[in-house]
């Protein structure tokens, strides 16, 4: 499993780096990891169906209990099938969808591969930190692919919206994970679930985790980002924003539900949110004219249904959720691909602009009708099986308010049926107004087989599984049992006889047809959907507030005065140690003075040049005197037996003097004229304070050692363990190498910052000079 993740990472990064040369071939290369994943999964199928679990563990920071724990059970396998299977189809599809001229198609393919790897990580992770990392990686890759067309302000704003909402939810989730881990003493999800902790802290942790779940799965009131995410190319939407990434939330919900559904707020909250999302999303979908947006709101609605089912958390509901997860992935991916085909061949995906299509389009129509019928829950299709299971589970859950929930479910299903019809009608049999847009082709050519193939490949299982759902019995049973060992074995049937679920299905379908036929008279009623609060205003308001606050604080803290900056830094350095000095630190007495002539001579040079640097008026001379104090220090290091330190100090002094000179060339030759006493007094006071505190602190700290020095141990272990005789170097690159890694990162950041700062005002020829901005507020506020 680890190898699969690494394969995704390597291939993905490789394509991102060299993708421009590969062009569309990058998409085929990107499909390789997905294909390998499917192949590997096939070899493990036997174990998984028997209820077996495959685990892998790799400890990387043992001291912190950080390990990469992976765990594949039947439910995770279901997700892996979606991720790798639909991924494969999307990569092949993308080869036809993207034209050679598409901006950065190579990078896009690489990012999609990286996404597939992160999503695989979410499905396989058993360690909460690994889960969190992969979870946020999916948010980041999603951000990059939505904003792939970085020249479009709309795409950038949508990408940022998605990132802030899902990333913010992820942060809340991380907090929840930490509380859970503290409560149970383990970061392994499987162990936490087995321990089934309870209590107030766990309740708070669950709220935090659910924030992550609900934002990721685009539940009300966080769903706004998903509609904006449709700015991404259609293959991306088909993959990330319907089949996989948005399922990460419900995936985690499914894992947690069997154990935590008994927590007081869980069922009422999740059932309410699920129902609200189902109805709200469905109502919005009913009024869209953009086919892709219609599907996006449909996805929101279906995710609401999944939240409802997994939120109920009963064994039946969880199993029904598994079926729905698979069914939705199949039909929604196919439908997105159909929209992409329409968009690509005709130049539009708006119901009002689509031209009439000729006979060659029949296979496309077949795929669309089949998948839309599955979405609507028509019999003999996979969606029907899923919906029957859902009705059955809700009725049998035996919880309070069942009939209200069932009523809402029927209403939402009716709406689903209505927008499914609207999709097919709008795409192929719609109003056919003559479009004024030049870009719309009046006689579109039907897609090539290679283009349609992937959609067909995804649509065929929808039909087959609808006819012979029995082949999935074992899989769904195993998946259900891996979530909740109490799950009964499942028998999926096309015909259960006339029961409550069938009656509900039939009435929902009839109501849906009626809703579509009568859409004009009830249009006003449907507008409720548009008026539901959608969180978009709260998002924008929040951003504005954040910017305003940041402005204020920056104005306050960064006032631009160098004397104040240095003053604050030095005073902090002088007064923070005072607390330690004044409490429980007796004066150890004056240290033994080192009186040999060499020391005294060097000390004299250091003190003299330091004084000179303070009083001299030419900047260059001051810098040189400053350098002399540094060389003096290194001479001291040298004669005190620290050649390594001395060497480093000499090199640093040399280079920093050169760099000072570089900057000094831009400054006046001399310091400002002698300033007034009122200005000089504070400087003298600060300087004296810093010097005294540092001196006293050094003496007191050296004389008040309470713990054994680690130096002896380091000296003893340097050669046997670090294989080096230079202890300083062994510390730097081995014992404290993590510190060094942090420090070089800081150095790199500082170097990049220096170049950016120095170049801020300059622009290459031909470009207007303007201050560099990374994110304009106007970008953010572009409504997706």
């Amino acid at each position, binding site marked *: 499993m680890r190898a699969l993740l*690494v394969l995704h990472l390597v291939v993905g990064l490789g394509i991102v780096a060299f993708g421009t040369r590969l062009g569309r071939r990058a998409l085929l290369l990107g499909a390789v990891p997905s294909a390998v994943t499917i192949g590997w999964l096939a070899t493990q199928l036997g174990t998984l169906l028997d209820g077996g679990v495959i685990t892998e563990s*790799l*400890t*990387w*920071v*043992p001291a912190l209990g950080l390990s990469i724990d992976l765990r594949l059970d039947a439910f995770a396998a279901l997700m892996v099938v979606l991720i790798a299977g639909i991924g494969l189809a999307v990569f092949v599809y993308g080869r036809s969808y993207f034209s050679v001229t598409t901006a950065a198609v190579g990078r896009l393919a690489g990012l999609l591969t990286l996404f597939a790897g992160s999503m695989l990580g979410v499905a396989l992770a058993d360690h909460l930190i690994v889960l969190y990392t992969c979870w946020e990686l999916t948010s980041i890759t999603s951000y990059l692919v939505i904003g792939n067309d970085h020249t479009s302000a709309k795409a950038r704003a949508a990408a940022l919206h998605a990132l802030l909402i899902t990333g913010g939810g992820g942060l809340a989730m991380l907090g929840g994970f930490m509380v859970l881990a503290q409560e149970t003493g383990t970061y392994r999800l499987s162990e936490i679930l087995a321990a089934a902790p309870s209590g107030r802290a766990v309740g708070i942790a669950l709220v935090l985790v659910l924030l992550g779940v609900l934002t990721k799965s685009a539940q009300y009131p966080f769903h706004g980002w998903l509609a904006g995410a449709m700015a991404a190319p259609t293959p991306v939407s088909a993959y990330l924003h319907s089949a996989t990434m948005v399922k990460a939330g419900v995936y985690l919900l499914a894992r947690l539900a069997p154990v935590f559904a008994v927590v007081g707020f869980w069922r009422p909250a999740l059932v309410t949110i699920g129902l609200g999302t189902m109805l709200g999303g469905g109502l919005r979908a009913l009024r869209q004219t953009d086919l892709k947006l219609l599907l996006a709101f449909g996805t929101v609605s279906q995710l609401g249904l999944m939240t409802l089912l997994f939120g109920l958390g009963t064994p039946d509901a969880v199993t029904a959720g598994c079926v729905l997860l698979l069914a939705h992935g199949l039909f929604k991916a196919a439908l997105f691909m159909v929209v992409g085909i329409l968009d690509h061949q005709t130049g539009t995906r708006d119901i009002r602009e689509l031209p009439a299509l000729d006979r060659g389009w029949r296979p496309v129509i077949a795929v669309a009708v089949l998948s839309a019928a599955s979405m609507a829950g028509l019999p003999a299709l996979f969606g029907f099986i899923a919906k029957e299971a859902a009705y059955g589970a809700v009725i049998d859950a035996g919880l309070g308010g069942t009939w209200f929930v069932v009523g809402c479910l029927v209403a939402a299903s009716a709406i689903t049926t209505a927008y499914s019809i609207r999709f097919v009608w709008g795409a192929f049999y719609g109003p056919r107004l003559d479009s004024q847009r030049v870009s719309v082709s009046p006689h579109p050519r039907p897609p090539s087989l290679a283009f349609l193939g992937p959609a067909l490949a995804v649509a065929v299982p929808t039909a087959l599984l609808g006819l012979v759902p029995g082949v999935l019995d074992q899989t769904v049973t195993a998946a259900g049992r891996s979530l909740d060992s109490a799950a009964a074995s499942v028998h999926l049937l096309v015909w259960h006889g006339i029961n409550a679920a069938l009656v509900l299905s039939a009435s929902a379908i009839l109501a849906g047809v009626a809703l579509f036929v009568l859409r004009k008279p009830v249009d006003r009623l449907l507008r409720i959907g548009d008026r539901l609060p959608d969180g978009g205003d709260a998002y924008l308001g929040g951003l504005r507030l954040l910017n305003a606050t940041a402005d204020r604080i920056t104005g306050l803290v960064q006032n631009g005065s160098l004397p104040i900056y240095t003053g604050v830094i030095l005073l902090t350095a002088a007064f923070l140690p005072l607390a330690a000095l004044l409490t429980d630190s007796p004066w150890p007495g004056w240290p033994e003075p080192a009186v040999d002539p060499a020391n005294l001579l060097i000390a004299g040079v250091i003190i003299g040049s330091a004084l000179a640097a303070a009083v001299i008026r030419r900047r260059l001379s001051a810098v040189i005197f400053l350098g002399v104090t540094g060389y003096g220090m290194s001479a001291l290091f040298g004669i005190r037996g620290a*050649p*390594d330190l001395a*060497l*480093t100090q000499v*090199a*640093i002094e*040399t*280079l920093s003097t*050169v*760099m000072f000179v*570089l*900057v000094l*060339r*831009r400054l006046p030759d001399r310091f400002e004229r002698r300033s007034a006493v009122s200005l000089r007094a504070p400087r003298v006071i600060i300087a004296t304070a810093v010097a005294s505190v540092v001196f006293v602190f050094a003496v007191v700290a050296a004389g008040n050692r309470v713990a054994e020095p680690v130096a002896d141990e380091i000296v003893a272990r340097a050669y046997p*363990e*670090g*294989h*080096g*005789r*230079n202890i*300083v*170097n*062994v510390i*730097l*690159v*081995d014992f404290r*190498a*993590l510190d*060094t*890694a942090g420090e*070089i*990162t800081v*150095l*790199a950041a*500082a*170097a*990049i910052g*220096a*170049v950016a*700062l*120095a*170049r801020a*005002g*300059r*622009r*290459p*020829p031909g470009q207007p*000079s303007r201050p560099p901005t990374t994110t304009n507020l106007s970008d953010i506020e572009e409504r997706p």
Partner: protein
Amino acid sequence: MTAIPTQRPMTRLVILDRSVRVLFHPILMVSLYLLFAGHNQPGGGFVGGLVAGAALAMQFVAGGIDEVRRLSRFRPWTILGTGLLVSFLTASAPLFFGDAILTTTLFIREVPILGTVKTTSALLFDLGVYFLVVGLVLMIFEAFGDEPASHSPHPPSHEARR
């Protein structure tokens, strides 16, 4: 001397120029020596990088930013990033062999001429530090090393287009 490819006239001192040419490569050798010897004697990647940086600084003093740019066909940030990457890859490599992150591995090899060579994976980490420091120095020259506008004999508008 060959024609000086700087955009603006620049006085070059022959003695300085010649000294730099003579000293540049020996100093680079010293910096490499410090890098490789660092694990057992005074030195290490950081100091080595700084000494190499000092050599670059000499080139800068003699010939300005163009002289420094001509030394390497890689951009400063590429060198900086390569260093960071090498260090982090070395740090995380043990993960792939089932060890904890940053675990040091000892290599002992018989090498012709040099005899038995004992190195550790930490040397690779140090190599990353070396490159990073060299990249850092180059980047600072890149940032502040060109002639300030006020000292330029050319009008500022021309200067801005450098």
